[in-house]
């Protein structure tokens, strides 16, 4: 497996630049080379996984808590990371899209988010977690226009907040009855699914992009990281009975989310591709966290880094090549971008059973194809064949610099993950 991955990565490093050559990319060979460069891991990964899965019993239930990992500075790391990424997005945007009030809300959410991820104990954690989407939804409520869309988004966020409130109230009763742990796990799992955008609440994270971009950022930069890190904290600290039901529900919802949105990313319209890629990655993050394995958690944290870094590289102000690099990173072109994180999640899923392994592999394949299609669109825009939004402003000003910076970070974040993740979150194992 390792040898196949190394060979495939070397193949990608040759094929992807070749596909970018001007003569090649303008011919029919360019897309073929790019799809080959992006699509081989599906074959390499699915084959051995299928072979390993047949004739072998599932490895058993999900492991306890977070494996052997300990997160020592989640709150501080989250604050530093999201502040840096939010600033990058702010700079990479056109002046008309820079909304002061959404930035003010983002700053107001920061202390609550840090408190929530640093809190110990179910009740304060759940109450503070509920406060984050309420603040964000409050801002969305004040945005003009897009009423129906806003209603869908606000409803999902409201259900998440209510689930957390109920979970917070029921948590202290866990030891009193046999049903209470499952009820608490159910409440929190539904709340987290609504908060981070898993199925059946997934549409909100994608629809939020239909609001002003700065408003969608609020959800992505705060709700998703805080929700996922809140899950990690809960899994590490809660009684086994609660963690077990929470893990099982999130694992299933994460798998469903990943496979559905990866299919949308691969075959859906261009305007929803970025959001679909991110929604599928959120599903994979939930799978990684819920697997309870060390590599799953590392993969989830790595994907979280990517989810925050990639959008600035795909913003309208980014120059063409930076946008192409951003697409390749988001698609998980081996060995760069999101690929290492997804591979770690796959490794964690493969220890549970064959079916999750196959589903994660399929999702990875869909995401690769989606990234390749986005990159092809970026090539077309760079060569002037497709009037992509913002193409006229390419290569100029602060936005271009931010685009290049974000693209570089997105490409390197995956390979540098073993260094970055412990540095940001204070991971010990």
């Amino acid at each position: 497996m390792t040898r196949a991955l190394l060979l495939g990565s070397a193949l990608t490093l040759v094929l992807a630049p070749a596909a970018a050559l001007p003569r090649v990319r303008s011919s029919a060979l360019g897309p073929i080379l790019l799809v080959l460069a992006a699509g081989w891991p599906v074959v390499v990964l699915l084959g051995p996984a299928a072979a390993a899965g047949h004739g072998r019993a599932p490895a058993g239930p999900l492991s306890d808590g977070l494996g052997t990992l300990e997160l020592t500075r989640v709150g501080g790391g989250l604050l530093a990371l999201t502040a840096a990424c939010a600033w990058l997005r702010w700079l990479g945007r056109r002046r008309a899209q820079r909304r002061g009030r959404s930035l003010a809300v983002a700053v107001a959410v920061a202390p609550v988010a840090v408190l929530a991820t640093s809190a110990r104990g179910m009740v304060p954690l759940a109450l503070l977690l509920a406060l984050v989407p309420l603040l964000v939804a409050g801002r969305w409520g004040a945005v003009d226009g897009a009423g129906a869309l806003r209603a869908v988004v606000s409803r999902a966020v409201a259900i998440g907040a209510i689930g957390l409130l109920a979970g917070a109230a029921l948590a202290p009763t866990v030891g009193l009855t046999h049903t209470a742990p499952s009820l608490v796990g159910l409440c929190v799992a539904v709340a987290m699914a609504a908060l981070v955008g898993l199925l059946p609440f997934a549409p909100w994270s994608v629809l939020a992009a239909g609001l002003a971009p700065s408003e969608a950022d609020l959800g992505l930069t705060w709700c998703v990281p805080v929700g996922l890190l809140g899950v990690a904290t809960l899994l590490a600290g809660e009684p086994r009975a609660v963690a077990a039901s929470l893990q099982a529900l999130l694992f299933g919802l994460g798998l469903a989310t990943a496979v559905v949105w990866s299919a949308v990313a691969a075959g859906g319209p261009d305007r929803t591709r970025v959001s679909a890629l991110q929604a599928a990655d959120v599903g994979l993050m939930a799978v990684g966290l819920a697997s309870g394995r060390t590599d799953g958690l590392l993969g989830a944290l790595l994907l979280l880094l990517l989810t925050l870094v990639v959008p600035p590289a795909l913003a309208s102000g980014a120059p063409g090549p930076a946008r192409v690099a951003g697409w390749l990173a988001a698609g998980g072109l081996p060995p760069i971008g999101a690929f290492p994180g997804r591979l770690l999640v796959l490794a964690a899923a493969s220890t549970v059973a064959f079916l999750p392994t196959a589903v994660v592999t399929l999702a990875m394949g869909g995401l690769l194809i989606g990234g390749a299609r986005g990159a092809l669109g970026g090539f077309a825009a760079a060569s002037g064949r497709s009037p992509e939004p913002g193409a006229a402003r390419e290569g100029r000003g602060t936005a271009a610099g931010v685009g290049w910076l974000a693209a570089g970070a997105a490409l390197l974040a995956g390979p540098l993950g073993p260094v970055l993740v412990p540095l940001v979150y204070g991971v010990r194992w």
Partner: protein
Amino acid sequence: MSTPAWLALAATCSGVVALLVDGRRGAVLAVTVLGAAGGGLASLSGGLAAFAVVLGPCVLAAVVIELGARGSGVRSAALGPLLPAPPSEMFGSRALRVAGGIAALLAARWLAGHVAAGLVVTPVPVFSCAFLWEVGILRAALARTPQEIGLGILAAAVATSAFLLLRGGTEELAVAALAVGAPAGGLILAAIPRRLAR
């Protein structure tokens, strides 16, 4: 009937009001009734302080909503569209809420048998809290306006606060205040007229 049973009945009735009320005074009525009934439920274990912690934010929110609606022509405090649903719709939002409410009563009855509230031995107050959570979910899921979503969250927050106080008594006052204060604060912020908020 004992005092807990009466208070639980009042809380359940407040849930029915919060679930079904519409119109211009709907938000004020629902918020006030929820606060009073939730506070009464909480006072079973927490006494007068618990009653004040739950009722206070709700009354403040109701006052600001009313004053905001009077002082502003921009934002209406009306709960839901004032015009009735068109005749082509067989089931309007309120009909769905009624159907959901009946299912919620059955679900709350089941929940009350499987959750214990610590200090309170009878499951009746737990039934009321569970019903209020479900009212919150129904109101938010079938909402047509931001005010309805806010009211749904407040109903769940009142239930959370009352349940925490029922279980832990006055030790949980701070957490209960946070639970009910944050959604009430959101309703207050939303009710401030836009020209004053600038």
